[in-house]
């Protein structure tokens, strides 16, 4: 396996696109009047019901292959629901209500943030089919707000191809057993308005750019105050490909910090699958050589359950190839077989496991068929594999095991085409697992239950007229004017203090760094100590500073007094600050005393001065109860030093 930590992304032809799904703050769900409240315990329920899904026939009388695989999984879908956030709409027992205008408007506002040029002037609700049970109808209602926008990323533009508004899916609960044919969903989240923001995937060429793209999008959702906050309100799907590979969608990455490892592990996987394809071709393999001949070898096992084996010609050593850290190709195949047929990974075995490939053994899902050297020989005696052949064994009921072997062989054949287009699920260690065959655009069709909604360009203009500065514009401004880092700007955005920041710096003429300290540093420091400084206190302090009733050096004291008793009047506050009215002689005496305390000699070099000057200032200020400005003290100290020289 190539080293995931040492990859030349540009050379590998890495490309990545994002589909950011972010819930929108709104009072009601997108297509019904249920409130957007989540259950604290997602397994809590007042009632439940269950359904089976089947694909709808296409116009040519056939099924979409992706949908057929979903149907093949044969899920029984159990829904848990609660009265307060679920009505008959979420149960798919009643048609949709008129879409939530608040969410529609927010879609246009977001589009304007992303510089979109082509708006949907009439909203046409579409259905996007999903058979995994996550949506009770079997399709998601979704519509375009606008197209053709962009975000700046490290000096270039990453294009936003589409911005959609859609209903969120139900929450899957009881995820633990992916082989189970029964799946559970809580309906509370179903129908939450969601925006889907899609980036042009040729525009991103490194994981860093991908991360920055995601961050820019996240900043917009925050700065616009449109994105819902909190756990689970945002989900990213990432499309990744390298040269010679194919588009693979990885779902469910919630934490941006994991983007890097995810990209690396996927690049490694695609690279290995391409190498594997080359090796298979080199061995002269063709798809026809794989036969669906399953041999019953149950008698070799001390078990009631059936065991079937199949020969995989010329595949020796290839199942043991490490495709992702701690996962070999065999396990990669078995993941897919498991998801579709329900036969657990541990009930699959490949012959490389006994034949020098030890990766499987160290993986999270080693085989538990107990095939030791002796049993291996016995199986070989029955199957009679040729020198370069490998074989696979599956345990299960006759029907399930056959199904699993069928899926296994089909997947091996696909290896001759390299990287299969598929949707995968992100797993915690940075790897991914097969989830479904990638869905095409052929699963989207107009929703006959909702008439189109005309939103004229005039209305769109009205809605988007007053959007504030875009995050990158804010950064540009604060960075060039005050030297603020992106990190600082991010905190202003994340804590939603940008408006106050602008107010303090313009209306109150406050120093930008002081405003930042007041809005970000002080509340954050106090929060760490479990002290919540409310916005009114911050606002009041800002006014006090502006009218010079207090000075910046007194901030900490004022905060401490007000957080204990926010009802203090200005007079009481000043009284408690215990401001000393010092004459200039008195002050000079204190300054002198502190210089002597630190030692005059320590201020000789400019290097030392930098180090000790603030200490002296702090000591003086403390002695004076912060009743004088630091700047005054600094100039006093400087004059004393000059005197001394």
């Amino acid at each position, binding site marked *: 396996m190539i080293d995931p930590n040492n990859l030349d992304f540009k050379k590998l032809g890495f490309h990545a696109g994002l589909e950011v799904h972010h819930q929108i703050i709104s009072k009601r769900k997108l297509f019904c009047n249920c409130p957007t409240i989540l259950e604290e315990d997602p397994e809590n329920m007042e009632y439940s019901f269950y359904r089976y899904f089947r694909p709808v026939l296409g116009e040519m009388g056939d099924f979409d292959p992706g949908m057929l695989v979903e149907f093949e999984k044969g899920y029984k879908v159990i829904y848990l629901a609660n009265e307060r956030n679920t009505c008959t709409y979420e149960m798919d027992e009643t048609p949709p209500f008129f879409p939530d205008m608040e969410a529609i408007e927010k879609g246009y506002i977001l589009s304007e943030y992303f510089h979109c040029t082509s708006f949907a002037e009439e909203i046409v609700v579409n259905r996007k089919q999903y058979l995994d049970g996550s949506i009770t109808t079997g399709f998601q209602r979704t519509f375009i707000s606008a197209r053709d926008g962009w975000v700046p990323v490290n000096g270039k533009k990453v294009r936003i191809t589409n911005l*959609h508004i859609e209903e969120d899916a139900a929450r899957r609960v009881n995820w633990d057993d992916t082989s189970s044919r029964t799946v559970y969903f809580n309906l509370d989240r179903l129908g939450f308005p969601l925006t889907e923001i899609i980036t042009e995937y040729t525009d991103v060429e490194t994981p860093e750019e991908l991360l920055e793209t995601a961050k820019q999008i996240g900043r917009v959702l925050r700065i616009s105050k449109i994105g819902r906050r909190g756990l689970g309100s945002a989900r990213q799907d990432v499309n990744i490909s390298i040269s010679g590979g194919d588009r693979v969608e990885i779902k469910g990455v919630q934490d941006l910090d994991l983007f890097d490892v995810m990209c690396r592990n996927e690049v490694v996987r695609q690279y290995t699958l391409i190498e594997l394809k080359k090796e298979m071709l080199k061995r002269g393999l063709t798809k026809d050589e794989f036969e669906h001949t399953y041999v019953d070898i149950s008698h070799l096992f001390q078990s009631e359950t059936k065991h079937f084996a199949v020969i995989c010609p010329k595949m020796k050593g290839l199942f043991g190839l490490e495709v992702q850290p701690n996962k070999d190709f065999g396990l990669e195949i078995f993941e897919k077989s498991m998801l579709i047929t329900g036969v657990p990974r541990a009930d699959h075995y490949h012959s490389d496991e006994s034949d020098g490939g030890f990766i499987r053994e160290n993986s999270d899902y080693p085989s538990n068929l107990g095939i030791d050297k002796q049993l291996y020989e016995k199986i070989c005696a029955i199957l009679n594999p040729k020198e370069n052949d490998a074989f696979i064994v599956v345990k299960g009921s006759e029907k399930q095991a056959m199904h699993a072997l069928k899926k296994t062989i089909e997947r091996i054949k696909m290896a001759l085409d390299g990287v299969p287009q598929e949707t995968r699920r992100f797993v915690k260690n940075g790897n991914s697992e097969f989830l479904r065959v990638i869905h095409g655009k052929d699963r989207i069709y107009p929703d006959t239950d909702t008439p189109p909604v005309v939103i004229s360009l005039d209305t769109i203009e009205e809605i988007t007229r007053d959007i504030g500065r875009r995050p990158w514009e804010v950064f540009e401004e604060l960075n060039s004017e005050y030297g603020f880092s992106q990190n600082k700007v991010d905190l202003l955005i994340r804590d939603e203090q940008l408006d106050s920041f602008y107010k303090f710096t313009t209306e109150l003429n406050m120093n930008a760094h002081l405003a930042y300290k007041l809005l970000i540093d002080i509340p954050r420091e106090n929060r760490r100590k479990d002290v919540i400084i409310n916005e009114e206190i911050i606002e009041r302090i800002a006014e006090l500073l502006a009218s010079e009733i207090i000075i910046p050096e007194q901030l900490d004291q004022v905060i401490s007094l007000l957080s204990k008793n926010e009802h203090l009047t200005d007079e009481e506050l000043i009284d408690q600050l215990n401001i000393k009215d010092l004459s200039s002689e008195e002050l000079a005496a204190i300054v002198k005393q502190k210089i002597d305390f630190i030692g005059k000699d320590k201020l000789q070099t400019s290097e030392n001065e930098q180090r000790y000057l603030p200490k002296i200032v702090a000591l003086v200020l403390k002695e004076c109860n912060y009743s004088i400005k630091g700047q005054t003290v600094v100039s006093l100290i400087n004059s004393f030093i000059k005197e001394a020289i």
Partner: protein
Amino acid sequence: MTDEKTIYDPEGYRGILRDRLIKDKIRTWSKVSVKKGEAYYEGLLLPRSQHTDDDYVTLKVDTGYNLGILVDEETDIKEIGYQKGHYKLPHVDVEFKKELPNVTLLGTGGTVASRLDYRTGAVLPAFTPEELFSAVPELTTTVNLTPKTLYQILSENFRPEYWVKTAESIAKEIESGANGIIIGHGTDTMCVTGCALAYFLRNLPVPVVLVGSQRSSDRPSSDGPRNILYAAQLAGYENFAEVVISMHGTPSDSYNLVHRATRCRKMHSARRDTFRTLSDIPLGKIDDSGTTWFKDDIRPRSNPEDFYLDAKIDSRVGMLYFYPGMNPDLLESMVDLGYHGVIVIGTGLAHVGTDVYPALERCQEEEIPVVMVVEPLYGFAQLRVYETGRDMLARGVIEGENMLPSAAYTKLIWALGHTRNLDEVRDIMLTPIAGEITNRESPRGFMIMQGIEPGIDQILKNL
């Protein structure tokens, strides 16, 4: 008519925009580009649906999504490509299996399966054997199913003549040896058709199962496919010979109930489990493990030779829903218009206000039967309890017992098809023909399976 002209017809577009599309030779289904200031769109030009704004075009863009754009003078729209669609379905060979029962599916418009045209978004009902068996492949191994189309209409457009034709078709199928009949029907008036068939098909020898889908068949969650599979099971194998409705019993895909058509009513505008048996319990239920019968008065299969069709009707029957403040001129005008009979849905035990008495007297004089049924739907019409009821009886009204409005309406049409003699009509109306009147009312009829009761499964086990 030349082909060209039809091709260039911009389907659904109206007014100025339509003229412009014709002038610029822009066809629906063609690929177009739309330019408007900074905005640029490319996509398939879709037909415009009715009752939408005149000035917008609907485009299907590369992602499969649709959106609308206003086309004004400053908008540039051009056709940049055209690809004709083709719709040939693959042939499905369905083998006739000797060991399987023969079931005919007569389609009247309710679709249990559809095809979806993703290109256009059109929903095409699946009704040919190819379509039906492709959509619900399990059907081919359940019974030998022969689908036939009678009508393709929305069920609200049904008319009494259509009931007759449906019954005639059923009779023909029975005579040709069908072991059971399925009627695909829109759910809205499924019960009404069911009642009519129950009166028309005398000594019915095989099951007649009405079925449809309550959640549209163009969705992966549709109840249609399961409904048709259960209907095939019932029609092909079960030993009963009545007109029944079999649809979902709960919001889950767990079991279907079997309702006697004459006691069945649609009780919710959209839910899967909309159908309920009122004033009684359903005949039974069917799930993946088989059929459980709850009632013991079910008519078994019988000799087809005793079967006959009696579909004489007189459709000049009206139905009035009495409400406080109703002007009696409504009933008067029905007499003036020459109606031959009236069903009145009366309050409580089946009362109407005293204002209506003169109109009732007129009906009596002109020998127009007035049959009273109850607005609460459950329970009997009983006009001997209160003075007002006795006053009504004195004016010749017929107490409709516990017939549901749809059962009484269809029955009066059928009765009047045989006689206009008031006494004979009364006799027919008061004689139970197909379970539309029960001679006693079990308390269960208002308690069990009238909603989703907690613990319903336990109750079912004890039935």
